[in-house]
């Protein structure tokens, strides 16, 4: 069983799988985001309270969700790499970090654009906003720690450990709207019982979420190929792969 597991995580195999799955991820992401954007921005009814301004949720919520999802992915990949010494895990973590940081930045920017008409301010020192900002700093810390070491292997392991330590922040962000009295609105979709949103608003949002995840998958595959090639540049299979 374990040899199968290790073969699955071998760099040439990962490189080929990533190359083969990139177009699938891209096409599906384009379809899901295309449907989500048109249905969400054009066909969904305006909110009874927020009017048309609520439509930024179709970018904001998926970006915020993906910022947490990428961080968890990065930490889990780092943990797998540390525990079973699977080098591809470090490549996945290194490829994920900048994507996750971009999603976090996107969530912060769209959130403050949304906050301006709704709360009357671009920024409030509110638990959810602050913890999302901390997440951005954590990403920056992990990225710069990885680059600070001259020996790449050591940088990988140090960054993996830091991302595992920082994972404490993920549930704090997720539940911050429940635990503290927050300016930020509560959960709409991910809660027990019925989502507090009609189907014509909900389906585009779920489609955007799926689209963002597929988009993440596509970008991850592209970046992962680059990472694997760079890390394995001394080996013969890379020379053959690059030659053809």
């Amino acid at each position, binding site marked *: 069983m374990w040899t199968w597991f290790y073969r699955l995580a071998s760099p040439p195999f990962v490189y080929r799988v990533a190359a083969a799955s990139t177009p699938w991820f891209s096409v599906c992401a384009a379809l899901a985001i295309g449907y989500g954007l048109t249905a969400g921005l054009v066909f969904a009814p305006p909110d009874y309270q927020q009017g048309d301004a609520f439509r930024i949720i179709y970018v904001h919520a998926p970006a915020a969700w993906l910022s947490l999802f990428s961080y968890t992915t990065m930490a889990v990949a780092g943990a797998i790499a540390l525990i079973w010494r699977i080098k591809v895990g470090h490549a996945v973590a290194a490829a994920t970090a900048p994507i996750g940081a971009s999603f976090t930045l996107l969530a912060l920017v769209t959130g403050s654009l949304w906050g301006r008409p709704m709360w009357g301010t671009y920024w409030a020192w509110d638990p959810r906003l602050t913890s999302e900002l*901390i997440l951005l700093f954590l990403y920056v810390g992990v990225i710069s720690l990885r680059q600070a070491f001259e020996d790449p292997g050591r940088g990988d392991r*140090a960054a993996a450990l830091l991302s595992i*330590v*920082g994972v404490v922040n993920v549930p704090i962000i997720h539940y911050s709207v429940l635990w503290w009295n927050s300016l930020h609105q509560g959960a709409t979709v991910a809660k027990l019982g019925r989502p507090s949103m009609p189907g014509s608003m909900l389906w585009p949002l779920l489609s955007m979420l799926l689209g963002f995840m597929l988009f993440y998958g596509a970008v991850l595959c592209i970046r992962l190929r680059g990472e694997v090639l760079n890390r394995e540049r001394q080996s013969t299979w890379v020379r053959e792969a690059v030659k053809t």
Partner: protein
Amino acid sequence: MTVGLWRAFCLVLHRELLLSFRRPDQLLQPLVFFLIVTTLFPLGLSVQLSLLREMAPGVLWVAALLSSLLSLDSLFKSDADDGTLEQLALSGQGLTLLIVAKTLAHWLMSGAALVLISPIVGTALAIPVNAFGIMMVSLTLGTLTLSWLGAIGAGLTVGLKRGNVLLSLIVLPLAMPLLIFGAGATDRAISGTSAEGALYLLAALCVLTCTLAPFAATAALRITLE
């Protein structure tokens, strides 16, 4: 010859304390820094007592964070440079326990000292005397937690040439909840409302880091040492 765990713990603790007492300037510098930073705020903003009292918790806690950060850089540095740390790792004793001793000594010399001089700063910032108790308890819990977070950060950056800035970049985001609850507790103590909630959260953070951070710091040191 091997010694027992407890004996090894005491030996390392004793050595660390002795070393820092031999170099009192390094002991005093973070404390003086703490005093200077808290002096800068009233000079730069306003000397009105009412305004000062409102800002005091934040100023106190930010200064405490920065001053602890200043001394964290030296936690493993000199021992890593002269090879003592490798000897400790190879000594056959649990490295985690020795790191607990080192971090505890570091906290006694920086955090606990900072707590002891905090009433002076509190007086200067117009914090009422009846809030000193909660201020000192919250600072004790906070600096202890910070020492542990810092041990992880210092362990990760010990092998680097310019690890100082990176250390701040790593530790400060993790320390932000600490600042929120710590300043919150002090703020509530000044306004005379119950500070228990924030203190319990601080204590929870302290217990969390005291139990888990030693292992994380050990893992970090093993990565950077090997």
